[in-house]
């Protein structure tokens, strides 16, 4: 598969731009810690970081993604994490733009315009999580599924790797099955050859450490997304990602209404992806990525007339472009060199006042960071969410919101200290009910019973 220099160029540009973003994702820390345990040969199959769900089974569906993050961190510290993010964004943008360029060769303006919704929407997922690697796999899958038999076969090992990286692989399997179905309908002779391909695709998703359980995480997110988490909420047109998504959806309908008819394969990719994208804000980039070749192959080229009069693009320029790209890439280590964690939203100053051992109730958003910053204090809850659903999560919400009966929940769990925000209702109520304030600043308050 030959990648266009223009796609590589844009990939490098966005890789640089993404290094300007700080390292502060609340989930990064538990991914790295999980990966660190895996790297030490101890893949966590049961909960080890919290005191509320200790010993409960946990998902292993992102073990490879966690491992990659941990390796990057172990190899180069936080610059390693930033370099991994830059590399993933480079791959994602390059794949997306290249998909557009291959659908519309010699029309870089159309390709860039077609790729723009995907870049804008995926930008909200350019964080240090396996999810970003899942998006790269998705973009590559879209690229492969537009090809022939060879590409379809390559899609199976990709799906296998994806299934170890992130739970979004389930969509990849759905797309392979849809593509097989479409091609079986379109290519009547030898249609049965798609049956083993589809079967191997299903098998590839079951070969991870979780086996059949690998589907639990994907199914749980799809059927019961935790709506109180912003990125799991339904797309909202009032937000920037929601507005971009709506525009993308409108563009799909407009392009389909006014442009050339879609093929069966395109239809069987775009319709399910649109449905999945509707389910949660974090899934909205999927539609934009899937629609890139569809847009690129149908949108008019504003400079087509000019280009037709100009001589053919000189192949010799490719050498210079590649040299330029290599020079740009050489500067990437400089961009990531001084990477560090931005802890401005985390309660670093409060840590000294937080007691060690079990019994500390913490803000959900700080759980992942806490298990990295103070490993001697197990967390009440953190961003892994599913080990805590439904009981611990319900108790967390009752306590942090100071709902009626919160004191009995605190007593039942044996909470001895709280690390919460000063604006949390519990911070006010617990103080009124006689909890001692051990630390307080603009970010956090530590309350001791």
């Amino acid at each position, binding site marked *: 598969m030959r990648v266009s220099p223009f796609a590589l160029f844009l990939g490098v540009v966005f890789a640089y731009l993404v290094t300007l973003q700080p390292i502060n994702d609340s989930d990064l820390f538990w991914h790295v810690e999980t990966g660190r345990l895996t790297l030490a040969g101890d893949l966590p199959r049961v909960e080890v970081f919290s005191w509320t769900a200790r010993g409960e089974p946990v998902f292993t569906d992102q073990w490879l993604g966690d491992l990659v993050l941990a390796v990057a961190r172990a190899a180069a510290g936080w610059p390693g994490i930033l370099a991994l993010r830059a590399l993933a964004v480079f791959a994602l943008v390059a794949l997306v733009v290249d998909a557009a360029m291959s659908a519309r060769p010699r029309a870089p303006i159309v390709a860039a315009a077609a790729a723009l919704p995907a870049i804008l929407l995926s930008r909200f997922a350019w964080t240090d999580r396996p999810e970003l690697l899942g998006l790269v796999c998705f973009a590559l899958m879209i690229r492969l599924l537009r090809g022939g038999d060879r590409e379809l076969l390559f899609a199976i090992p990709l799906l296998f790797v994806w299934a170890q990286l992130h739970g979004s692989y389930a969509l990849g399997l759905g797309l392979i099955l849809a593509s097989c179905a479409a091609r079986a309908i379109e290519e009547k002779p030898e249609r049965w050859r798609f049956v083993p391909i589809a079967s191997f695709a299903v098998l590839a998703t079951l070969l991870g450490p979780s086996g059949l359980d690998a589907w639990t995480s994907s199914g749980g997110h799809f059927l019961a997304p935790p709506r109180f988490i912003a990125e799991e909420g339904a797309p909202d047109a009032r937000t920037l990602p929601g507005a971009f998504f*709506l525009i993308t959806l409108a563009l799909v309908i407009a392009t389909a209404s006014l442009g050339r008819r879609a093929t069966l394969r395109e239809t069987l990719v775009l319709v399910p992806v649109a449905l999945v994208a509707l389910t949660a804000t974090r899934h909205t980039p999927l539609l934009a990525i899937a629609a890139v070749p569809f847009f690129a192959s149908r949108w008019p080229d504003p400079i087509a007339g000019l280009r037709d009069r100009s001589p053919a693009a000189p192949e010799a320029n490719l050498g210079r472009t590649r040299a330029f790209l290599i020079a740009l890439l050489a500067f990437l280590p400089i961009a990531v060199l001084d990477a560090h964690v931005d802890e401005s939203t985390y309660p670093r100053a409060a840590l000294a006042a937080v007691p060690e051992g079990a019994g500390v109730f913490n803000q959900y958003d700080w759980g992942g960071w806490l298990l990295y910053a103070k490993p001697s204090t197990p967390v009440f809850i953190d961003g892994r969410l599913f080990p805590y659903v439904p009981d611990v999560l319900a108790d967390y919400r009752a306590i942090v919101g100071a709902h009626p009966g919160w004191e009995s929940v605190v007593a039942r769990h044996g909470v001895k200290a709280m690390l919460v925000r000063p604006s949390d*209702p519990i911070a006010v109520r617990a103080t009124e009910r006689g909890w001692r304030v051990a630390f307080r600043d603009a970010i956090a308050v530590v309350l001791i019973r």
Partner: protein
Amino acid sequence: MTRLGVPLLVGALAGALAAVQPINDTDVWWHLATGRETLAQGIVRSDLFSWTVRGAPVSTDQWLGQVVLYLSYAVAGWWGVALLRVVLVGTLIAIVALDASGRVQRPLAVVLATMPALLLTRAVAVDRPELAGFVLFAALLYLLRRGRAGSWRALVACTALVGVWANVHGSFALGAVLTGFVCIEGALRDVARRREYIAVALATLAVTLATPAGIATWTAPGSHFLSPPRDIQEWNVVDVRTPLGVAYAATLALLIASVLAGPRIDPREAVIVIPVAFLSLTAARQAPLLAIAVAPLFAERVAWALAFATRGATAQISRPASTFLAAAAVAIAAMAVAIAPRAPDERAYPRAALDSIPHGDGLFARYEWGGWLIWNAPATPVFVDGRLFQYRGAVLDDYQRIVTAKQGWRDAVTRRGVRALLVVPSDPVAVRARELGWRVIASSEMFVLIAAP
């Protein structure tokens, strides 16, 4: 007549389904009270029902809808309110089916194409002017499609319809915008009729201003669109985990599949479908708009699929069969009239507290009980109610602060001069007030009435 049989029957069935629903909408009460005041004293331009924003300007964009609602109540009591709903729902679905039957002859295709609208409009089959807005939306699309096909009278009727709509409900803005889009597209495409289209577009814009509120008529739809109150369930985004969300997602998926696959659709439909699809994604209450708008497209696709499946065999409905369907529709409509509720369902309201609540200013009651109190306890003005926009800002902030017992809630109670709280026993403020020893005047499993010191 052959075209009318199926729409009448589907409409009658929808009306019968609407008749089964109880009268329990939280907003019907203040709509009725406003309609009554409008008939008694003229259009209500400032707040009459609350003690927190008394005298503040209020939106008049639904005055005609409220008057019609109150008249139905005045004529036949709660049965009249229910019958109005039955008629509106029946008319809405009948128009959708009629629009769907415009280009297809197969009755099954018309029925199947109408199903998404039937399912999605169940959520908006409530006793509010909003329901009339949906009927007018469906009627406008029918007229726009006829107008686009060459009927000058249909285009003129669009202007008149939007003129009425602007006095019934804020959703008229969508009608005006769609009329504008269709006219712009028509003027660009059909040079011979360009003047007609331009005249209709300008006249439609003008009639939206010929309302009691003048240019301010656009304020309510504008603020609802740009800043929907997400705290209210129906104004939240469509959630595909809910039954409504599933029906909506299926409709949207069918739309995308319809435009991607099969015979090419009329490109002029994009002028209607794209803005409606966009709007339908902004809030759950807008979701039915999509199903209403795409019914003709679905009918074409289903007819195409049926023709493909039956190898081109035609399936038109005969005149006697259509007459029979119309007669069945009349019978079903009569049944709907008979089963329509004759009293409101007040199980969600604190009726037992009515005798104990103090008269005059100072009662803090739950948001969703505000409208009911306006109607049932006129001597006790409300703190807040479903009219929402007039309370946005300080009043709504204080409401949230007090009901959830957030930091500073006691200051808010004192500053506002709250004398009593009428809330649910599990509300944080009820728990806190009891902990503080505030006197409980009356209570039940549903409510607690607490005197503020």
